């Protein structure tokens, strides 16, 4: 991103709700619209002031026009593209919105991140797909019938896409395991990190997080109101996590014997439904309109780390690049927010960034407790960092995003001038 800063006027998010929880009845478009509508109401900004709505989502919404769906449902007629960049789709949405403002195309934008893993995308098994296509192609009734010859009863079961890194074909557990081995991380440290994540997120949710807006979600015949994060649990202890069996089911590329495996369901995140949104504009415009500015975005960088050679290092690479350019030493950062799909990834990140004080990272909890919401993650991190910055009186904050396929992202935020 070129020079110049972007004002963050408001940031809200829905509660994070692990898959199958209170938000499981919401579609991605509906959930994104709640975040946008409440964002604007919180900021007391009318929908027609917004020129652009960028919606980031890794894989939710099948129409290809998730952005337009979200904008319509939020009562807006702004241009609304959707962007997808795996686990850093949210960061990407912010970058797209900032770029459009910086080049002068528009004044005010909303960046949204949303993911609804509860809204399962079912597929057909390969033999069934063959048979359906064969029926369609077949000209005679005999052709059409023959196409079904090879289909067994078990083929009729719908398939769900198992979440694997699209390049390394590793599951999240296998990737976490491979990173743990590479960095020599042991089980005790990973479990301890997970306990801390739960304790912090639980405290934050209990105290009431102002950035979280309640969502009225359909549930059966009625409507329930989900008010707070559903993932964090207060009673999680290291002893309890230590009893968990490792997820030694390993990836395609290598195998880890159970005796040395360290990754369990306890120190890994689950998928969660959620949506988050930020209102962005030019700082001078915000001042002119009398809007309060929560923070300013000073830069966003993306990086790709080789998914085989340096798995899950994208975030660290992007952050180094960004801070080098801005001439900011990492030691001076007092507020840092990073995605934490697995404890091993965060510990690896800290190992790659030795100057970063571990205590400033994810002080209000993270994805291990809240759940992992690919598209919503980046925007949640920005919203949290902005509020932590104000609470701690810090002058800057960094947001680090990373995920499968080598994606990495970093944002630098500064206190408003």
């Amino acid at each position, binding site marked *: 991103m070129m020079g110049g800063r972007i004002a963050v006027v408001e940031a809200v998010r829905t509660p994070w709700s692990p898959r199958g929880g209170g938000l499981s009845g919401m579609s991605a478009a509906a959930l994104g*619209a*709640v975040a946008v*509508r*409440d964002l*604007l*109401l*919180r900021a*007391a*900004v*009318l929908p027609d002031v917004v020129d652009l709505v960028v919606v980031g989502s890794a894989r939710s919404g099948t129409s290809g026009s998730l952005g337009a769906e979200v904008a*319509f*449902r*939020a*009562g807006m007629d702004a241009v609304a593209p959707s962007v997808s960049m795996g686990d850093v789709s949210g960061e990407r949405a912010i970058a797209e919105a900032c770029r459009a403002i910086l080049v002068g195309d528009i004044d005010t934008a909303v960046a949204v991140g949303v993911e609804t893993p509860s809204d399962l995308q079912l597929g057909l098994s390969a033999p069934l797909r063959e048979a359906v296509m064969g029926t369609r192609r077949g000209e005679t009734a005999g052709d059409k019938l023959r196409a079904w010859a090879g289909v067994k009863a078990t083929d009729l079961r719908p398939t769900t896409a198992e979440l694997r890194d699209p390049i390394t074909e590793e599951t999240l557990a296998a990737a976490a395991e491979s990173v743990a081995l590479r960095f020599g991380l042991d089980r005790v440290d990973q479990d301890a990190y997970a306990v801390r994540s739960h304790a912090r997120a639980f405290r934050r949710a209990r105290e009431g997080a102002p950035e979280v*807006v*309640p969502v*009225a979600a*359909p549930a059966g*015949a*009625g*409507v*329930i*109101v989900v*008010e707070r994060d559903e993932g964090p649990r207060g009673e999680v202890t290291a002893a309890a996590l230590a009893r968990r069996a490792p997820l030694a089911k390993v990836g395609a590329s290598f195998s880890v014997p159970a005796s040395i495996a360290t990754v369990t369901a306890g120190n890994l995140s689950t998928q969660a439904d959620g949506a988050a949104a930020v209102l962005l504009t030019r700082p001078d415009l915000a001042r002119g309109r009398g809007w309060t500015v929560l923070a300013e975005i000073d830069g966003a960088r993306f990086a790709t780390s080789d998914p085989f050679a340096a798995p899950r290092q994208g975030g660290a690479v992007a952050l180094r690049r960004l801070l080098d350019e801005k001439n900011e030493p990492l030691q001076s950062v007092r507020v840092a927010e990073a995605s934490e799909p697995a404890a091993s990834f965060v510990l690896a990140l800290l190992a790659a960034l030795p100057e970063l004080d571990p205590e400033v990272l994810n002080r209000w909890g993270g994805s291990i407790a809240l759940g992992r919401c690919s598209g919503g993650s980046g925007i949640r991190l920005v919203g949290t960092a902005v509020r932590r910055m104000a609470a701690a009186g810090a002058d800057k904050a960094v947001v680090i995003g990373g995920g499968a396929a080598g994606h990495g992202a970093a944002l630098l935020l500064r206190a408003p001038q």
Partner: protein
Amino acid sequence: MADTTHEPLPDGRRLAWLTLPVDDEGRLTQAHLGELEHGLDAAFGDVDVVAVVLRSGGRGFCAGLDLASVASLGDRRTLQAWSQRIVRLQARLSGSKIPCIAAIEGPCLDVGLELALSCSHRIAADHPDVRVGMPQIELGLLPAGDGLVRLPDIVGFDAALDLLLEGETVGAAHARRLGLVHTLVHPEGVEAAARAAARTAAGGASAARHGRGWRPTLPGASLRHRRAVQRWQEGRRHDGALGGSRLSALELLGRGRVEDLTAVSTVFSESAVSDATTTRLHTWRSARALERWTPPGDVAAPSLARLGIVGGGVVGADLAVAAARAGLSVRIREKSPSALGRALARVEAKVASDRDLERRARARARLSGALELDGFSTMDLVLESVPEEVAVKRRVFAELEDRVRSDAILATHPRATSVTEIGARMRHPERLVGLRFFRPLSKRPLCEIVRTPETSARALAAAVAFARRIDKTPVVVRDGPGFFTTRVLAAYLSHATELVADGFSIADIDRGCRRAGWPVGPLQLLDFLGLSTAVRVGHVLTAALGDRFDVPGPIEAMAATGRAFYRPSRSGPDKEPDPRVHDLLGVTASRVGDPDELGERLTVVAALEAVRCLQDGVLARPSDGDVAAVLGLGYPAARGGPFRHLAARGLASARSRLKALEGRFGRRYRAPSLLVELADRGADFNVLEDAAS
């Protein structure tokens, strides 16, 4: 204008597009009829025209007769001649050698439907704006053309009874199922479909005609019809809804197919000049005048784009949906998550019941709920409908005044407490106005607007604009405990409970009121509203206005136990009067009352309270009270409202009748001083009509 376009066809012949001449509201006046006749002359007179398509200029068809001209004609002969012209026009359409096609894109009601039924082919847009039916029977008005004869022929006898006597209107798809229309098309495809149908029919293929085969000549058929008529009569007789017009329609239908259509015109003209119809037309005209009324002073109503609702009860939720459908963005604030969930579930159920995808999608995009007042500073109007407790309501307005823009309008939905009292602690009481709506919202087209001495002209203008926006007739009343509607209703209901305590039977009281024309009996209504609520309202009003609103002590004790007047029936799904009520009250239900007399007495009690409202200055003029009572409370429409009811036979006669009632039943029936004074002067309520305006 009935302008006719003759479209050349490839074979050199022509297709005539005849635009129905109707006014802005899609209604046909007498003058239009002549234009239509000329249009048809031109089309039929041209030998090259192979088919005629009847359509309307805008998106519509014809929404019926212009009722203002029906009311102003008043003369039976003229009306009869008018009806004969319509019948002749229909005969020309149905008897024409070339196909006539009706292209229906909007309301097709009453005379509009009759004209369409005379066409050989009917095409309707698949759009929720298309409504088909004969609702004018609700005004006591029979079909002006030969609909009484034609309709059973097309939809079958039973469906025709529902359409003709119940005034049921149906959507496009239902109309297709009934056979009222032959073809449903996408709203954008009506013209193309009409052209295609015209060319097919003109090419010799017989136009589709599928009636339900009403063949009175078939053996046994007339017996079946007689049974249907009988069933209908029996089913409706007990509740007194069967007015004179319906009876004469039934009588005509019972004769089977009539060849002499002058009978049709006779019953129409009779119905149009009947008391029942002129009374209903009077109410209708007063309501229309109120709909067009603008508050004095050249204060423009502020723009209403965003509505905040505090309190998501039934009123709040229903209003939210109505406002969202009217294009407002609506945010409901409810304090507890469970209450918010209930409110939004109700909202979603209402929205989901809309058949039209676009309206559903747009309504959903405009509706949301929250636990906090975030964003209420963007609202143009904030309506409070939290439970009736002055302290709670005041707290809401204190909270709101800190939040909303300085030019926002605040509204309260009070039950009985005066608006002035609710707004007493406000920093800016001039922006507060009372808005009363009635349940069920979809069936009570009234918005009672309560203005306090402080209410600004701007707030009043906003309230009127809002009422109009959601299709409610605005009636402005001056503030006071119970304002107008609650006062009238409370007097009526408390007297009904007195009659129960006096030993009259629950069934008799309710039946009497239904026969008098109330939609439900007073005791049924009390069960619906909640007896304890009525007791509380009674206390509020009694403290301010005198003891005519209190329910008798034993009934109050009964309310405290949560008992109702009706209980689930042991024999069926309905409810039956609870025989233990009288035991509980310590009286025997032994008094035999004539239900009709009880109904009339209760109706008079309601009317007298309305007169006191006028006397106290709550009402600006009598017609306001008539409209508000009929539209909001369900006051018998055949009586035209309390003032018209009392003055029906002159105020002098009303005074002496009241004197007799007072002598027999006590001071509840004492004539208010205003009535006595007017009667002494030999005047009518009408003299107060002009004085106010």
